[in-house]
């Protein structure tokens, strides 16, 4: 096709301005698709923070609050549930398994979670992946502690190290449970979920460090108990849990089970369906998402406007060329076609280069982002969203091409063959 051939050769002749234009479109397209990928990655990693858990149960309060402190290690629990209540539900016939959580303490800013072996057996994240141990074993004794991957990495802990737990969840607690240090027995594999940033002990451990703290204040001097005292006690009675995760025997029973728990009269408690609550949360964050996307769309528009400016300003130098083309028989239509094709080629090249750039950056940056931010951005072949973006960019390029093209058309009609350069 002659017009296409001419358009391509003309663009190649202006290689510098062509590559600048293609480059700026490519960058803006890369930003658009990159943001889209990050958005999808964020959304997926967010909604995959926990999986296969049918219900999260805690003291009555806000659903999002329950989700935040149980799954994301953020905010504070309002109230605890009694151990007896927990046991009663754990043995409910519609419930297959539970993972109890005892919260409220921390270690150097990381949340301490009291749980039991069910955590290691049952907890699932991102499409059903299991918790795995990088080293050692899951805690089972009173003073055992298992560290999330980030905790171990950031604090430089290894197996056998002694860890003191701080009362409360501030970064710098002044009420330390120093008299009862825990021993690191295991370190978890990285999950890229909040699991990495938590410290896991047993529920018995949580009870033990709170002996004498029943009124919320440290024991009176002389009444502190030491690690040896606790170990000498033998069996430790667990009195409470903060929340627990539930796997239903049959998923069809989940809604009924949720209603039953919410209506429980023994104690004010509530159950949330994690998928729904996560969605609800994401919708709150979603506004930022829309804003981000809007900004990137404007960036692409600016990139295309750059192309428009570059084509438009080149027209004056090209009046001679247009006159020659007319003299050898090109009608105004061909001149319009030539310029529109140039614009389409520029935007298509920019779009494709942008797409390539995204994949190059993604494959180079994925491990870094994963390691630094804990955000796993999946790399997959361009999907319908990407193709839609590319089509939109090329269409916009096509439409914008008519601006210089119609200008050239008018100039060519007016100039005839009489342009003097």
């Amino acid at each position: 096709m002659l017009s296409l051939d001419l358009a391509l050769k003309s663009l190649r002749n202006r290689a510098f301005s062509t590559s600048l234009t293609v480059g700026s479109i490519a960058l803006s397209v890369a930003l658009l698709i990159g943001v889209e990928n990050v958005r999808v990655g964020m959304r997926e990693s967010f909604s995959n923070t926990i999986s296969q858990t049918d219900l999260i149960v805690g003291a009555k309060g806000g659903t999002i609050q329950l989700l935040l402190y149980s799954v994301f290690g953020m905010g504070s629990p309002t109230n605890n549930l009694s151990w007896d209540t927990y046991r009663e539900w754990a043995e409910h016939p519609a419930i297959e398994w539970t993972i109890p959580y005892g919260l409220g303490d921390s270690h150097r800013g990381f949340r301490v979670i009291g749980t039991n072996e069910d955590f290691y057996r049952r907890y699932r994240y991102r499409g059903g992946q299991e918790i795995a141990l990088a080293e050692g074993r899951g805690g089972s004794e009173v003073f055992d502690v298992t560290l999330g991957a980030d905790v171990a990495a950031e604090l430089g802990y290894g197996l056998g190290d002694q860890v003191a737990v701080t009362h409360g969840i501030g970064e710098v607690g002044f009420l330390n449970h120093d008299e009862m240090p825990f021993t690191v027995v295991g370190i978890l594999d990285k999950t890229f979920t909040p699991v990495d940033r938590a410290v896991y002990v047993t529920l018995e451990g949580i009870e033990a460090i709170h002996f004498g703290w029943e009124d919320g204040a440290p024991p009176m001097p002389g009444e502190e108990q030491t690690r040896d005292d606790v170990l000498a006690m033998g069996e430790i009675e667990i009195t409470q849990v903060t929340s627990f995760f539930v796997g239903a025997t049959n998923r069809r029973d989940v809604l009924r089970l949720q209603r039953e728990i919410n209506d429980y009269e023994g104690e004010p408690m509530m159950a949330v369906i994690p998928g729904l609550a996560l969605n609800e949360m994401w919708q709150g964050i979603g506004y930022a998402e829309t804003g981000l996307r809007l900004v990137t769309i404007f960036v692409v528009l600016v990139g295309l406007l750059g192309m428009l400016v570059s084509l438009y300003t080149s027209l004056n130098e090209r009046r001679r060329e247009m006159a020659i083309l007319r003299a050898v028989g090109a009608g105004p239509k061909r001149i319009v076609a030539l310029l529109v094709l140039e614009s389409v080629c520029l935007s298509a090249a920019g779009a494709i280069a942008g797409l390539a750039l995204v994949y190059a950056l993604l494959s180079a940056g994925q491990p870094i982002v994963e390691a630094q931010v804990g955000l796993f951005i999946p790399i997959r072949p361009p999907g319908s969203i990407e193709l839609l973006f590319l089509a939109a960019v090329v269409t916009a390029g096509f439409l914008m091409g008519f601006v210089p093209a119609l200008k050239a058309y008018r100039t060519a009609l007016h100039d005839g063959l009489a342009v003097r350069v």
Partner: protein
Amino acid sequence: MSLAIDVRGLRFRYGNGPWVLDIPELTLKRGTRAFLFGPSGSGKTTLLGVLAGVLKPEEGEVNVLGRDLASLSGAQRDAFRAEHIGYVFQMFNLIPYLSVLDNIALPARMNAARRARLDGTGVKETAALLADHLHIGDLLTKRVTELSVGQQQRVAACRALIGAPEIIVADEPTSSLDFDRREAFLELLFAECELAGATLVFVSHDRTLESMFSRTISLPDISRTAL
């Protein structure tokens, strides 16, 4: 049908400006080598634009090869020009981003009738042959920006001649050449026109070349508006 050009009562002006051309009659037989002269600003290029069908006259008939261009639509005139007319400018004749070969081949690639007249010879071969005739056969793959002005004008002549259009229109193509080269260029152009049986309309304000042509037309004499 022995007339290549037959203009009657032509009046032309740009927009609502003064009349630039007012030519009661102008006829050219086929195969004529016509020398059209007139001072700068007398409407020479405008007349060529009308004859080439780029500009549309307000009044009158412009019969070229028996077709009245004044009655054709813009697209029809474009197609007519592509098929029947070869055009050479005063200077800056070439598309800067095409090679010498591509510049010469352009009219043949753009118009099927011009291509058809190559008699089965390929566009490239014909372009090369023409280039040989005008002594620029060794420049075919060069960028046009590497050529001298004289070489550029010969490339332009090849482009006008490819596909044997019946009429060659040349707008002071020699004005940027020195005298010896002017003559050499004209001789080559004449030879090719003769070979193709083309009518040549050659515009210049330089009357030293006049003697080489078979007919001389003074634009101020035939146009009532010309200065």
